[in-house]
């Protein structure tokens, strides 16, 4: 599903250049649940941003579902993001003046899906995250865990190839974190490919594979036995 070869990325800061990713080779199969771990500054967020086409790579190649991702202009990147990827952010990033349902329907709007179908689909995904009766509430009326579940529903609504989650539990207490992880595991069980950036070991243990980044290179890449989040809920 994802194939990365010899990926380099550096940031220019004035006259200095900061080499963040120094040759990453990495691939993800369909249906995997991967945790990307690393201390801050290890380059894990940069890697996720490149995977999410929010940032461009300097060297190397990136293939997503057989499509080489290169020479993207903003318009093309936006279309690919819309088609291939679902995002879940640490700070939820829901649009505060739109109701839960409207938030979930937003990626479908950019897919040019009609209004009625958009609403039906949005309600279906809200149902999946257990928030159907909260469809008309604004994000400010939801708890942190509920917000993240709405964000996950939004990411899923576009039916992406890959779900990218950047510290999805970073702003949540542990009970809520496990609820969210339970949801993510269930989505993964249904066959969706998910990448999670996290620095919490217990969250990483709930994935099927852990990739450790340190100073811009992968130092460890292992498959693990998944800890089910449902036992903590």
């Amino acid at each position, binding site marked *: 599903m994802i194939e990365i070869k010899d990926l380099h990325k550096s940031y220019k800061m004035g006259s200095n250049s900061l080499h963040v990713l120094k040759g990453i080779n990495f691939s993800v199969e369909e249906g995997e649940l991967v945790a990307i771990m690393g201390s801050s500054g290890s380059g894990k967020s940069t890697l996720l941003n490149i995977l999410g086409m929010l940032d461009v790579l300097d060297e190397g190649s990136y293939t997503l579902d057989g499509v080489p991702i290169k020479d993207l202009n903003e318009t093309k990147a936006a279309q690919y993001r819309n088609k291939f990827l679902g995002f879940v952010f640490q700070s939820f990033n*829901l649009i*505060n003046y*739109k109701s839960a349902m409207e938030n979930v329907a937003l990626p479908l709007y950019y897919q040019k899906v009609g*209004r009625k179908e958009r609403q039906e689909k949005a309600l279906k995904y809200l149902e999946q995250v257990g928030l159907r009766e909260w469809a008309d509430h604004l994000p400010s009326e939801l708890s942190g865990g509920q917000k993240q579940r709405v964000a996950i529903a939004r990411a899923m609504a*576009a039916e992406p190839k890959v779900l990218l989650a950047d510290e999805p539990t970073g702003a949540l207490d542990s009970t809520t974190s496990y609820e969210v992880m339970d949801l993510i595991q269930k989505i993964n069980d249904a066959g969706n490919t998910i990448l999670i950036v996290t620095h919490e070991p217990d969250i990483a243990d709930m994935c099927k594979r852990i990739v450790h980044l340190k100073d811009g290179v992968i130092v460890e890449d292992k498959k693990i036995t998944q800890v089910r989040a449902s036992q903590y809920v």
Partner: protein
Amino acid sequence: MRFLFDSNTWQEIFGSIGKNRTRTIITVIGVLWGILIYIVLSGAAKGLDNGFEKQFQNVAMNSMFTWAQSTSMPYKGFKTGRQLQLKLNDGVMLKNRIPEIQYIAPRNVKGIFGGSPAQIIRSGKSGSYAVYGDYPISTKIATKKIYDGGRFVNDEDIDGARKVCVIGERTQKDLFENDENPIGGYIRIDNVFFQVVGVHKFTPGGGFESDSDIYIPFTTFKKLYNTGENVGWFAIAAYDDADVIKVEENVKAVLKSIHNVNPKDERAIGSFNLGEIFNRIVGFAKGLTFMSLVVGIATILAGVIGIGNILLISVKERTKELGVRRALGATPKEVRSLIILESVFLTMLAGVMGIILGAGVLSLINKFTQGMDFPYANPTVPIPYVLGALALMVVLGTLIGLIPAQRAVSIKPIDALREE
């Protein structure tokens, strides 16, 4: 273009406008104020213009008046300071010599330029009013509105030197009872009985005429006051395409040659030219219209710049939202269109509201000035002006929207998402 007619687009725009109410209202007020001022100013200018026109509608625009004064230069053995007197025959000569003259009306008056007004008596009631000696042609130069059932002096009155008169509204009020029909009634003018044949409606329009004036046939006036061939002044109307200022010069030159006056004598013949005055007033009204246009457009511009300003702030506020939208698959074009359409929509909304409000204010002003002695009538804004203003607003709204729109897409989505 399809984007414009997509109901989804409009839902997004209504969503973002409707959910940011305070911002929307403040933005709208800026432009609304601009267009309101524009509409009210240009409507008021048009109203003044109409008002002036109304005041002058009874008088031929290219008309003039000329009268005799006393000479200020010696000429052909005549000494200076000689009092001149216009004669009936002068009118005939003027008409023959100056082809631009369409109508020429000799007039006389008692009680305006020196001399006491005539004593008018009717069954115990009496008053002093100015009496004019007129030809029917007078009405071609300055229209006299005569109330129903009456008429002005006609040719038979002139030929027979009939003792008939046209009285004014106030004369009627002074001499007749409210329910009395004055037509056919008799009044005494300086002890001679005259039959009333008409009542004229007074229209204010400058000059020395008033609502109490009495008009009698010129020939009757001649007999009554023993004025012989004397003429008080000539009212002259030139053809529409003639230059009345030139006609005025020619008239004076001819009169000077008839009366043996030095051609260089500026004081011997007096004259007054309505065309010139009228042009000045028209110029004033035009200037006013132009000024209101400039002020109005400047105010609209200020309002639209205000919209741009507020949208710029709003884009800054919404950086994160726009970043999320782009992460979810909004193309730069879609984001840009969203902001520009918001700008144009707000401008148009404000514009239409401003136009409606402006029309309301204009009709209020109209109501209050009605019946006042103020040259103001039917204030309207021509449709092309309104459409032009709307078009201007769309263009300006788009242009000003470009700035925040460009700013919105110039931030990378990743930076936008990082923004707290």
